[in-house]
């Protein structure tokens, strides 16, 4: 690096922190402007989960036995449905190109996009899932663990999902393709998440499953942004 060009940076340049904050804020701003966007993942989860009782007769015992897997699978699908949004609009309008040639590390930018996705589509589920759980006749202890496992699990889902979203950028029929790429990677999250709830409902401790979920989450935190950033660069080439 020549000394020359290093000094060019104007003294008053924004800090990395405020740039990153702006990226996060913009995503949330855009989503709030379209209120429907935020509400949508939420309602998808509620409606889709309510379909199961309609497909099976309304036997309360069957319902509460199905509940952990149904609720977790639906959380997983609703996170996944909104994945294609994570980068695609920035890609279509050229913003993503600009992000790649911005003066901030791409990995950090990607991390912000992931966080925004989680806040908008994962976090709300933590709060509704217990309500739906009531409709499936789940008890108080199960509901608590359901919320706890979703809190960790949905963040992991957004992180892992970002890789699929980045890989499928600019490919048509993305929705379903992402699903194929991402669902297999989601399996550990599902197994430990639903496992924790199942454990409580048969009177065992959920701690084992929850700490494994935590381990998956930390792995995802480290590797997913790196992988997504690499995938984005490839997609734009």
């Amino acid at each position, binding site marked *: 690096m020549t000394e020359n060009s290093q000094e060019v940076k104007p003294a008053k340049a924004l800090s990395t922190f405020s740039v990153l904050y702006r990226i996060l804020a913009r995503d949330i701003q855009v989503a709030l402007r379209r209120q429907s966007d935020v*509400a949508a993942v939420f309602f998808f989860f509620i409606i889709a989960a309510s379909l199961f*009782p309609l497909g099976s*007769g*309304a036997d*309360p015992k069957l319902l509460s036995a199905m509940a952990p897997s149904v609720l977790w699978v639906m959380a997983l699908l609703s996170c996944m449905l909104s994945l294609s949004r994570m980068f695609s609009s920035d890609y279509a309008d050229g913003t993503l190109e600009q992000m790649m040639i911005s003066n901030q590390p791409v990995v950090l930018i990607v991390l912000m996009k992931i966080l925004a996705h989680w806040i908008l589509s994962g976090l709300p589920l933590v709060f509704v899932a217990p309500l739906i759980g009531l*409709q499936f006749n789940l008890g108080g202890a199960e509901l608590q663990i359901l919320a706890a496992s979703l809190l960790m699990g949905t963040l992991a889902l957004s992180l892992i999902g970002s890789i699929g979203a980045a890989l499928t950028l600019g490919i048509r029929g993305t929705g379903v393709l992402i699903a194929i790429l991402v669902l297999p990677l989601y399996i550990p999250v599902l197994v430990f998440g639903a496992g924790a709830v199942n454990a409580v409902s048969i009177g065992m401790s959920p701690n084992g499953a929850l700490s494994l979920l935590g381990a998956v989450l930390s792995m995802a935190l480290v590797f997913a942004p790196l992988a997504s950033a690499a995938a984005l660069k490839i997609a734009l080439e």
Partner: protein
Amino acid sequence: METNTGTNRPRINWLKYASPKTFYPLAGKLIPWCAVSAAVLIAYGLYIGLLVAPTDFQQGEGYRIIFVHVPAAWFSMFLYLLMAMYAGLGLVLNARLSYMMATAIAPTGAMFTLIALVTGSLWGKPMWGAWWVWDARLTSELILLFLYIGYFSLQAAIDDKNRADKASAVLALVGAINVPIIYFSVKWWNTLHQGASVSLTQAPAMAAIMLKGMLIMAVGFWLYSIAVILMRVRCEILERDSKTAMIRQD
């Protein structure tokens, strides 16, 4: 469709009120009357329901929730049909006022749906020992809520007013065709496996006083709906007129 199709027949009088300009002051006059009578009737209905009506020998005091629950459930369905009717009228006549009415009805309809659901499940806990059972009537009420939500979401997602009006009108109509289908499908589904484990219609023969209370509440809700809907339409007219007024100023 448009005024310039060139027929010489005089316009039917009611079309005059279909223009926002004439409608606005008319609505303004109606609102206070409706609001006041709604308040009076609802208060009187509650008085009958909570104090005058005798305690039910089977259900104890809990049954008093019926005075809110049943009229709310009626109106949740009635208002949906009304909304769909205005939406259809809007599409056929291309009348802006019809769209505005449909838009204005939706929130009130959704509110009554929510009230029916909440009061129902509050009542369900003591009656059936569960907040929720998958009974046909309950389920179709829940789906009705989803239809309202779809209507809102679509309208919120489109910011060109004109397009939002028409698109959500199409949705409301499609939903209206589906409501009876949904109701019967759900009913059919539920009776397949289970016997009538819960049946709402087998309430004890209603005492005359209960019927009176419920009817008064229903009329109160009706007047309340009219007042709120007219208020919303007036706001809508103002908002849109301020825009159209600007059109020729620039």
